[in-house]
């Protein structure tokens, strides 16, 4: 079974803090993704990575950065957290397109910025 784990289920931070969200997958997948989920807006792609040290902006990258130093780990960084970044953050991974289009999601991290 593919497993995608996220470092925290719930996180509370203060405005201006630097926040790290960690994601680890155990299936040797090339592709990893970070989404945020907000009611009525669905899943919006923040960043994705198709290889170690490679990253691409998604639809809403402003205020976020990412790091992928190892194949299994993809980190989302909020350099200076703001209240409008309060949201559910979901990490996903997928194999190459030639193998499957399916994305496997972690359980999510609910981040509250006060």
């Amino acid at each position: 079974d593919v497993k995608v784990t996220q470092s925290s289920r719930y996180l509370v931070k203060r405005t201006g803090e630097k926040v790290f969200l960690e994601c680890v997958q155990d299936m040797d997948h090339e592709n990893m993704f970070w989404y945020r989920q907000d009611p009525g807006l669905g899943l919006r792609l923040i960043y994705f990575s198709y290889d170690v040290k490679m990253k691409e902006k998604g639809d809403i990258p402003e205020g976020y950065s990412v790091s992928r130093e190892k194949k299994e780990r993809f980190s989302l960084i909020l350099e200076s957290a703001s209240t409008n970044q309060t949201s559910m953050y979901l990490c996903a991974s997928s194999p190459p397109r030639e193998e499957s289009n399916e994305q496997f999601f972690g359980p999510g991290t609910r981040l509250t910025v006060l």
Partner: protein
Amino acid sequence: QQQVKQSPQSLIVQKGGISIINCAYENTAFDYFPWYQQFPGKGPALLIAIRPDVSEKKEGRFTISFNKSAKQFSLHIMDSQPGDSATYFCAAGMIWGANNLFFGTGTRLTIIP
């Protein structure tokens, strides 16, 4: 802008009834159309998916209907059960580039006894 439009935002169906969720897209580069199911406190999980070379795919009580000319696809849940209560997302993936998916805004489905 939203590449995949999904409706309705919420849906209440009687147990045993048929639940129908609709999605529409514009980009003809999409060639993969999955539906994801999300229960509270969990991440989304793939439920069923279709490619544009077929008009329908059925897995148990779940069916995707696909209309290529109209650029629309829908999820039908037959004999809906309380355990089907969840949020459903349609999505679309492209024939080129990274293995991205473009998600709809989600439908919260509630099955009442």
